[in-house]
């Protein structure tokens, strides 16, 4: 997982509320293998970005050249609502975004982002609306997200504090995911397992299936 400390990057506005996970990653892309070079970047918000013929919608901000290198998306409320499809966070990530800013995020989606090194930042609605205006007025403007200090610096220089769970913050800053954290307990897991195996030696496993039975 990439560490997240201070990010200064182009931000793109997306003034649509309740972008659900089906819009973020349309169902028909869900059965696709993710490999380097063949991931969900095309699928991300596909039906908003492209028309029925697959032609980019010119009026859609993300398609404008000024926003092409955006790593921050400034959304409206309830981003990530709908089904719990976890591929949605991968789509955001594969597109090249590192952070989302919005008035609210769906809970499951929010958690999935954090587990993959993506930072969702919740700011009050008026602040978000003001960010949209600034980004529209100056396409290609940058926003700075200072995670250690929990601050968003708008294009106009104004600073806005945000809240984040301290454990999640720590892991993002260090770039360690849940698996890395858990494997720090490897000795405890192994000791637990050995004791359990001794107390309950009959616990089943599926090795016989592996062996072809």
């Amino acid at each position: 997982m990439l560490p997240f400390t201070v990010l200064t990057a182009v931000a793109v506005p997306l003034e649509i509320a309740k972008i659900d996970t089906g819009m973020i990653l349309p169902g028909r892309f869900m059965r696709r293998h993710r490999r380097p070079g063949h991931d969900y970047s095309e699928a991300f918000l596909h039906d908003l970005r492209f028309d029925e013929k697959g032609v980019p919608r010119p009026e859609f901000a993300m398609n404008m050249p000024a926003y092409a290198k955006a790593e921050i998306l400034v959304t409206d409320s309830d981003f990530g609502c709908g089904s719990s499809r976890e591929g949605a966070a991968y789509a955001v990530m594969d597109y090249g975004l590192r952070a989302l800013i919005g008035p609210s995020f769906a809970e499951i989606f929010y958690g999935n982002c954090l587990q993959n090194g993506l930072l969702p930042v919740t700011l009050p609605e008026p602040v978000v609306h003001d960010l949209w205006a600034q980004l529209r007025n100056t396409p290609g403007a940058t926003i700075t997200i200072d995670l250690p200090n929990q601050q968003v610096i708008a294009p106009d220089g104004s600073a806005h504090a945000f809240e984040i769970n301290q454990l999640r913050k720590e892991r993002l800053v260090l770039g360690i995911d849940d698996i890395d954290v858990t494997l720090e307990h490897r000795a405890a897991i192994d000791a637990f397992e050995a004791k359990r195996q001794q107390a309950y030696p009959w616990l089943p496993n599926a090795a016989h299936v592996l062996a072809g039975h």
Partner: protein
Amino acid sequence: MADKRSLYQKVWDEHVIVTSPQGEDLLYVDFNLINEGGSFLAFDQMRMEGRKPYRPAQHLAITDHYLPTANRAAGPAGIGNLEIRKVVEMLASNTADFGVPHMNMHHTQQGIAHVVAPELGYAQPGMLITCNDSHTATNGALGALAIPIGASMQLRHVLATQTVWLKRARTMRISVTGTLPEAVTSKDVILGIIAQIGIGGATGYAVEYAGSTVRAMSMEARLTMCNMSIEAGARIGMISPDDTVYQYLNGRVNAPKGADWDRALAYWRTLPTQDDTPFDRELSFDATKLAPMVSWGTSPEDCSPIDGAVPDPALITDADRRRHVDRALEYMQLTPRTRLADIAIDRVFIGSCTNSRIEDLRSAAKVLRGRKAAVPGMVSPGSTTVKRQAEAEGLDAIFRAAGLDWRDAGCSMCNGSNGEILSPGERAASTTNRNFEGRQGRGAMTHIMSPAMVAAAAVTGKLTDVRRITD
């Protein structure tokens, strides 16, 4: 001194490795089931990160969600829809790459994960079992702590560490007492509970089902009940183990044998919750007042006794509930106050992790024996083992003679991601667990009920009180 902890608390405590400062417990996973729906995301991400499974033999992947229930002999090449075929093939290649045991489409014990795990003895009292499926609580009927996990991030974590981080849930005991009336099954009991407490009624709770009605239920009836815990909002549903469980497990392929069996039994007998164990919430239901249930709306809580009628939204005082019912009736193309027994159906489906075990098939076959179905439909046994048993008992012949299609094992028309769906505007009587909009296909209308009730609907072509089907 007697242990005043509930079954849930005992099994949870038994699996805690460490506790985080934030109050999350790192729990050891004894056994993890994997299906093809979404799990490829976990394998892909592990491949990208260069991670390996920690204890590969403590996982069992079973192809069930996307696998069509016909034309198996042709292998993956026989799957016409290339997207579906790809998902089926991905589980085979991912499990091969990562050395994870896999029951593929040709395995003699293939079936729906939550049917296979109990019948092969992978699910036992006191175990902690996870699966990337919301109906994992099914296995709680044996006194296991069976927890649904996310198909990508949590599954990846379980694969890479054999553990999962979770916070304790609050505890709820649902006691059901009294003798079940004729033709009322555990499916009707759980639908009755969901109708009363709502689909969010048990959210945040680990539910334990108790009471004389539950004690009198067979193992398979209990599996149906725990299966639908998630439809009441509970991720976990359990039943304290007793002789019904021990007898069911005795002799199963992966159950303990010999001296181990005696040790296991002694341990299992320490697990049941005591009557005076405190719970965060206690509910009780009178089983004697229940009738066979059918759903009329687009949520599992939208169900009523078969002798009832479609509700009239105008009489609903709660504005949110009225809006939901309005929309549900519009989707279901139903007029308020229509008698439920007057609703004509186009198709029937018997199957799913809720109701596809041998007892379910027997109860449907009992109604269909010597009768013709008025509508088309299919029967998908929950596992290849169940299929063999049903065929040995001649149940397949009864279904076929009635005009129904006898299929292979899989999730089939319950989730539809295998391509087995209804046409838009078609209405089905179904033994499945969810009647959401579009669940069985875009524009398809689903009425959920017990296997015998689906069989009765098949016979008459409309929703029918099975007690009225007599010789």
